[in-house]
């Protein structure tokens, strides 16, 4: 674990797309999906790309896997330039980028694997052996000889994963591979990923699930609005918050209560995620949760608020994201505070 096996320097990507607004003329709109990204992934690590929807994760992966050309910058995968030695790059990687897509529905799982094996130039005997191996490893024998059109989406997903392993490449790109899997299947997939890594494969894994990144990744880059805003081991990232603690509250909190809480000296940040039925969750970042607890309780009691639960929380990568952006990663996010307004600006 020393050499960078993936290296990106100043990668940027700008999409031009037509914007259609009601009552207005169509016009071209620029989307800056990546803004000068520098990145090094070391040989043998599981590297996590973590970020909310639209952060630029897929765009970055598509560029590194030669599907898209960058607008600016350059990158090397396995020592090969992604723009000048595309075929060598492709031969060095296995990819699962589009969830359960990318399979032929009228072919069986096995025929799909064999087909893609041939397209990766895997010699026939090796191909047959590797497919048998994958069938055993991923427990595919129940459905591998049926046509893909008969699969459940989870089954398609796992065959798509098998496809990424058919050329047994040293580097694996996985773009939210667990996104439609049930919990046990996702856990099993993570276990296999870990196992493949133990046997020497380098893995670049994108997810918007913090716990997944924490569980799996040696190092994590947090990406937001096309920029890497934090990078390091999960431990380092959490330690970077210093001696900050998080107190988590659940209940009903009017905006006035939240403002009052923010005004309490020693409170650094309050992130609000709205839940259904008017309840919400507050993550209060403070310097010392034990000392601050009485003052937090005082600030949130009365005046129409109801506290249902209050507990000091272990710092997670989610909190790192909150600290850097003022937003949470959850989908229903209501943002409070000046920092957050700036975060939204991009």
């Amino acid at each position: 674990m020393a050499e960078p096996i993936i290296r990106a320097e100043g990668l940027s990507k700008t999409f031009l797309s037509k914007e259609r607004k009601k009552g207005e003329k169509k016009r071209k709109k620029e989307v800056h999906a990546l803004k000068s990204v520098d990145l090094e992934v070391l040989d043998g690590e599981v590297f996590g790309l973590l970020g909310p929807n639209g952060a630029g994760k897929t765009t970055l992966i598509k560029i590194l896997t030669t599907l898209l050309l960058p607008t600016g910058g350059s990158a090397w995968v396995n020592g090969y330039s992604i723009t000048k030695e595309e075929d060598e790059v492709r031969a060095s990687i296995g990819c699962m980028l589009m969830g359960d897509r990318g399979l032929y529905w009228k072919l069986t799982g096995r025929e799909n694997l064999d087909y893609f094996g041939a397209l990766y130039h895997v010699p026939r005997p090796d191909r047959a052996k590797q497919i048998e191996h994958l069938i055993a490893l991923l427990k595919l024998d129940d459905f591998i000889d049926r046509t893909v059109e008969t699969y459940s989406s989870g089954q398609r997903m796992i065959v798509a994963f098998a496809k990424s392993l058919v050329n047994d490449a040293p580097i694996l790109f996985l773009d939210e591979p667990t996104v439609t899997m049930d919990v046990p299947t996702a856990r099993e997939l993570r276990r296999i990923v870990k196992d493949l890594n133990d046997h020497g494969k380098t893995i670049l894994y994108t997810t918007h699930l913090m716990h997944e990144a924490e569980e799996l990744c040696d190092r994590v880059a947090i990406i937001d609005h096309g920029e890497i805003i934090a990078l390091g081991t999960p431990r380092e990232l959490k330690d970077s918050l210093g001696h900050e603690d998080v107190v988590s509250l659940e209940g009903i909190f009017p905006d006035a209560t939240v403002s009052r809480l923010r005004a309490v000296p020693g409170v650094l940040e309050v992130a609000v995620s709205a839940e259904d039925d008017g309840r919400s969750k507050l993550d209060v970042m403070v310097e010392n949760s034990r000392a601050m607890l009485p003052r937090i309780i005082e600030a949130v009691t009365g005046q129409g608020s109801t506290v249902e639960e209050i507990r000091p929380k272990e710092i997670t990568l989610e909190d790192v994201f909150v600290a850097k952006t003022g937003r949470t990663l959850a989908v229903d996010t209501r943002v409070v505070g000046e920092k957050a307004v700036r975060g939204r600006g991009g």
Partner: protein
Amino acid sequence: MAGETVSRGFGLGRPGPRASAGVVWSVFRARLKIITRYKGAVFLESIIPVIFAGLPILLGAAVAGGEQNAANNFFAYTGTTGRTAADFRLYMLMGSNTFMVVTLMLWLIGYWVRREQETGTLEALYLTPAKRFHVLAGVTSYTFIRALIAFLVATVLGALLFNVNPLEGNFLAAVAYLVLGIPALWGISFFFGALVMRIKEANSVIQLLQWVLAFAMGVYFPVTVFPFLLRVVAMGFPPTLMNDAIRSTLLGIASIYGPWYVVLGLMLIAAWLVPLLGYEFFGWTERRVKRDQGVGQF
């Protein structure tokens, strides 16, 4: 377990001849497997040209008052005499069959690109180190077989239904012209494939072009009936050449292009020039698409 030792992969960036042949063969076989899983597709599409030929045959008989009259008028207008009603039918049948081959090519390659986009397999293809040339070679070999089978089935069906005997004429030479005409059709369909990759509304474009094609290649008539400018354009169009070569050979009538060696020469030129241009255009489009949206967008 694959990784008992640290694995560095099986894949090759630069394949040898064996691996390359493996790509062509795998693509070819996969396409063939897929079509055989759509029951009856090949047979059904072979019925279409028979219906297509039926239209002008019946219309001709109705307008001219009898089929022999139709044949006399038709061939006289197009510059030959002493032709039978069977020749008239064969003329229409061959035109329709050739048209079917042309549209088959357009759909099989042009529409292939869109299908692969929809299923996400186009991106999957672009993730492999397989060369575009080898993948397209696999696809075109498949379309070649498909077209040949469809043409023969349609000819047999049509011969039985319309009571004509294509073997009376120079049938083998006609099939040879069909085979020789197919590479140019590949070239055109590469243009189509490239357009499909870029244009979102590809289906309607192909639909439209298919009928423009039918018109321009003279399905039911020699293009000499066109006004001058249109005729020049139509004659410069490879399917017209192929259609004319097949029909004139089979029926033993004069080609609109001139003596047989001119026809053969033109066919030979088209057979390598058009695919070459189409292939270059495909590659060029592909690079452009990768520069902006990516090949998976449609």
